[in-house]
């Protein structure tokens, strides 16, 4: 696997690492008709730079809400969120957008590629948003698609690709703007077990080899075994935070694609 232009950080020692995302006593309440739904109640969490965190919990536990907040897609009803030390709770939507575009790369369960754009254009899109130099952006998009093994499918539309290929495209896209954080929401949820394993192994490699902070939201405990740290949610509260001692590690360089 080709390395991205990032410095590799030591994996197993987080004592010196800084927290990249911090939640301080965060509440999120939704108004559903006349009922108030408390999706998160007083969550405090530190995600260290270079960590691989799995946020696990049953459906309705608040993990999607937590993901939205961590990914700067939403702001909390109460409490504060710091991204790289910056309080994002009161940022304007546009500031939030550009911060998000530079810092967080998203991988969704349903891939969420833009249907009218080819794989190449999809990967290019975040770079265009960040106003990258044209030729550099194209070079990078090509490299990233090569990295995920799709160099022959550059011009395929999402509808012309399999689920696994689409998800790999979306991984390439999440890496486009070289963000520090990769946020994956049930990244294998729509895939069969073989392609699912390819995807999770790819994520682990991004963490291991390229020093990305990977945050994965899942209800699948088997998938969570690939993560370095587990955060378990129940009814909008964190009930467990611990390092995963039974972590499944992909062998270095043992990539299939």
């Amino acid at each position, binding site marked *: 696997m080709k390395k991205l232009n990032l410095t590799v950080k030591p994996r197993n020692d987080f004592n010196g690492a800084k927290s990249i995302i911090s939640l301080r006593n965060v509440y999120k309440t939704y108004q559903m008709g006349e009922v108030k739904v408390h999706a998160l109640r007083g969550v405090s969490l530190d995600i260290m730079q270079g960590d691989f965190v799995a946020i696990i919990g049953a459906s309705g536990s608040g993990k999607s809400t937590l993901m*939205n907040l961590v*990914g700067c*897609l*939403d702001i909390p009803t109460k409490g504060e969120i710091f991204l790289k030390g910056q309080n994002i709770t009161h940022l304007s*939507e*546009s500031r939030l*957008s*550009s911060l*998000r*575009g*530079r810092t967080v790369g*998203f991988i*969704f369960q349903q891939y*969420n*590629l*833009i*249907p*009218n*754009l080819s794989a190449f254009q999809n990967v290019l*899109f*975040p770079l*265009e*948003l*960040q*106003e990258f130099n044209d030729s550099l952006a194209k070079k990078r998009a090509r490299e990233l698609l090569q990295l995920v093994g799709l160099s022959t499918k550059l011009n395929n539309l999402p509808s012309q690709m399999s689920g696994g290929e689409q998800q790999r495209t979306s991984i390439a*896209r999440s890496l486009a*703007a070289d963000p520090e954080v990769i946020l994956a929401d049930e990244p294998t949820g729509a895939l069969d077990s073989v392609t699912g394993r390819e995807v999770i192994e790819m994520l682990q490699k991004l963490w291991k080899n390229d020093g990305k902070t990977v945050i994965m939201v899942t209800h699948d405990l088997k998938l969570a075994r690939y993560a370095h740290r587990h955060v378990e949610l129940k009814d909008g509260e964190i009930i467990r935070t611990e390092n995963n001692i039974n972590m499944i590690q992909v062998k270095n360089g043992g990539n299939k694609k």
Partner: protein
Amino acid sequence: MRLSKCFKHALNMVVHSQLRSWLTILGIVIGVASVIAIMSMGAGLEDDITSRLSNSGADIVTITAGYSRAFDFGPGRDWGGGGSVATEEEIVLDRSDLQALRGLADISLINPTISGNAEVYYLGKKGSVRVTGVDTSVWPQITTEEIAEGRMLGPADSNVIVIGGSIADGFFEKPVGLNQMLTIEDRAFRVVGILDTNSMEIVMPLMATYQVLDDKEMDVYDSFVVKIKNEDDLETAIANIEEKLMLTRHVTAKDKDFSVSNPKEQAEIRAEMMSSMTAFLTAIAAVALLVGAVGVANTMFTSVLEKTKEIGIMKALGAKNRDILTLFLLNSVLIGLIGGLIGIFFGYLLSGFLPGLMGQGGVAGRLASSSVVTLQSVILAISISVVIGTLSGAIPAYQASKLKPVDALRYE
């Protein structure tokens, strides 16, 4: 995102859009095409009237027998064909009227004319053609038509004719050139001139015309074409002519049996009529354009709704509100612009057809050859379509830009 990239993605949206977008574009096409076609007609008309006013001499007055507002259809005219026999009761212009007019100081030239249809043969082909007999010494000075080839008729001419451009080119099987002989009602005439118009007329000396047209009586005229000495005194001159003729013909203003055309008045009436017709048609076209605009707005709203999830994805990827706003606004402007450009093309085609559809005869028919697509109307149409695109797209694009990423992503 840079504007160029926004533009690229907006264009991509239009290209990949469903049939719906193309139908919307069609709406704009229809609106713009009709505006262009009608404005071109109007412009052509304006040119036509202006040229008529300047060339065709605002100092030329036509006097016909019979009283009718539309001097062209006065009973003094014989529309040919059947052998209408002049009865004693028939109202005519004759030698005494001519003498009376010659005595007027306001008039510099008088061209007494008769006209009718005659059988014309050329190289074995025949056809019915309108022939007009003129005073050969006056006609060259008074006519507004111009010679393309050869010469005008002269005072000494007797068995020669000048033919209209259409007779020369397309009427007979073979084109008629200078010095060719045409046979009109068994008499041979040599072509000495070809007029520079589409006219289907043959102009010949008055005396010869009396011999050619059986039903015409010597010294009885269909009309007098009169040149006024001083154009500025047109009104006075017309009044004097009327007074004099009433006196010689023993009639009063009430039972007046002749008409004097006023070229200025006629041009004005025609201009007024055509401008109100153009205004009416433009109003209809504007309604079509308005409907097109509503269509764009409708499509944009639907498009924003349809692309809600995409908007969510774009925002998750770092698109700012401004990016989304620009993207959708450009999309809408492009729909307007594409519609506008196609519309100009069709409007241009239509401006050639429309007058024909409205009937070849009369003013509209003449317009067929004279409608002009002006740069002004093209610029106007493009700006209108861009403005429509912007206005119709503004609210939907604003709505799109204000979508919250979380809600948009959740939208299915």
